């Protein structure tokens, strides 16, 4: 059985496409087998919703009169510094940027209640932000100071552009030390007090196409409630990770660089988050449609929470000092039970990614495809290390 993207798009247009979410398809394959399921289903939708710090947005502001050259100057949104090393009116806001007056971890642990991500959420929620620009002034851009309030609609362009999202597989974080530590994996209690994970498991985009046979540069995705695109491999993308027999990587590996129109996005699927003692970040809702091009695609899209395993890493020493340490592996199903066993100790688990919201992403993408509002794309090129189906 093989199927092409063109055939799937024709079925979407005709209103005859069959779409399952990456959770729903597990039961179907168990019941009917891979071959039958592959014949029946055209697309499997995935979803994830979790903090992804390598996220941000670039903006182009309407010029003031007289004109101002922000490039080389200093610009803030609500006190949060924005990168202005470009032309006169282009700015980039990183989600982890903080106001200068934020005490950070000088008062430990810092709270990081307002940063770049919160600006993005404010704009998406219809609130205006205050722009303050200081420039050096040129003959063609004489203005040196500019203060204004801008809503999302006031920008010429507002584009979400995330250099690294959708990490394929992630660590389970624990703390072997004697004190509470505050990490990007959340608050970790001493002496294996808790184990935190951050993954959508059986719904996770890149875990359901583990060898990246259907996703590549140019793939259209669900991003923050709108359409987005894979523009490049994400930073730190690992082309040839060690893999299990089912194709799943054993360590954090593939990543995606994503882009989409911020003006079309929704605060339901892009949320600002404040990690105590760590920083501000953006929780991103991301969904990839997996076209069922052959039986192998279907077999891998049906990988279950029981089959996905993650390495357990100590974040008090092994992670910060890059020391080896083997605390074993644990499956998504075990993590979701609320308790795992590490070094003979029962440890409660907590998640940083929302499975409930990930499910909402996958269901929303499924609905858009069924309604003919979302068509699939043929990747222009594979991601490094991958071969397209």
């Amino acid at each position, binding site marked *: 059985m093989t199927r092409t993207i063109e055939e799937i798009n024709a079925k979407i247009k005709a209103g005859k496409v069959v779409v399952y979410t990456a959770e729903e398809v597990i039961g179907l394959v168990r019941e009917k087998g891979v071959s039958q399921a592959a014949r029946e289903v055209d697309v499997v939708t995935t979803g994830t919703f979790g903090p992804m710090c390598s996220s941000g947005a670039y903006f182009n502001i309407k010029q003031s009169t007289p004109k101002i050259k922000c490039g080389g100057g200093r610009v803030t949104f609500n006190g949060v510094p924005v990168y202005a090393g470009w032309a006169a009116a282009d700015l980039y806001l990183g989600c982890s940027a903080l106001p200068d007056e934020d005490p950070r971890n000088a008062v430990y*642990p810092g709270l990081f209640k307002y940063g770049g991500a919160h600006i993005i959420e404010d704009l998406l929620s219809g609130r205006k932000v205050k722009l303050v620009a200081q420039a050096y002034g040129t003959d063609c851009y004489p203005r040196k100071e500019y203060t204004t309030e801008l809503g999302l609609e006031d920008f010429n362009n507002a584009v979400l552009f995330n250099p690294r999202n959708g990490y394929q597989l992630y660590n389970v974080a624990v703390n072997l030390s004697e004190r509470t530590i505050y990490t990007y994996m*959340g608050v970790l209690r001493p002496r294996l007090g808790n184990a935190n994970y951050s993954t959508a498991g059986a719904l996770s985009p890149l875990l359901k196409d583990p060898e990246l046979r259907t996703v590549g540069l140019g793939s259209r995705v669900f991003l923050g409630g709108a359409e987005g695109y894979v523009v490049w491999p994400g930073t730190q993308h690992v082309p040839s990770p060690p893999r299990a027999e089912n194709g799943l990587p054993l360590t954090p590996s593939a990543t995606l660089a994503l882009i989409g129109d911020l003006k079309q996005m929704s605060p339901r699927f892009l949320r600002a988050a404040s990690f105590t003692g760590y920083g501000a970040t953006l929780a991103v809702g991301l969904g990839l449609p997996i076209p069922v091009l052959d039986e192998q695609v279907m077999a891998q899209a049906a990988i279950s929470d029981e089959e996905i395993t993650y390495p357990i890493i100590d974040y008090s020493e092994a992670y910060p000092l890059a020391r080896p340490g083997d605390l074993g592996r644990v499956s998504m199903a075990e993590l*979701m039970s609320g308790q795992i066993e590490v070094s003979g100790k029962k440890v*409660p688990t907590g998640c*940083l990614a*929302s499975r409930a919201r990930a499910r909402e992403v996958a269901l929303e993408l499924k609905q858009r495809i069924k309604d003919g509002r979302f068509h699939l794309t043929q990747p222009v090129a594979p991601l490094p290390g991958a071969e397209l189906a």
Partner: protein
Amino acid sequence: MKKKLVISFPPRLIQEPVTYHLIRDYNLQVNILRATVRPRERGRMVVELMGDKKDLDRAFEYMEDVGLQADPLVQEMRYYPERCVHCTACTAVCPTEALTVDPQSRELIFEASHCIICESCIAACPYSAIESQF
């Protein structure tokens, strides 16, 4: 009979040995779940009281007479479901299973009657979905 409550002490009553009286004069079992007592500030204590209804009623009268405020433990921790994304990070640090995950919907469940106001969840929540009034 068992009652969980927050007892607030005005600064002038910080010296009053309340727990002693509750145990000795009213024959109650007193389980202190949490307390903050600082000089010249209002003190607060989360306690679980166990005993006969008659003794409990008399204990409440005593507390009212001396000027202690005893409130049922309901509004101390406030959960804002509209801010919550159901990541469930809080469940790993909650010692009493007041915060749990529904295994089907994977949504957070806050059972206020199990909460002992330890506030562990506050630092664990990235979305300020839980706040303490304690």
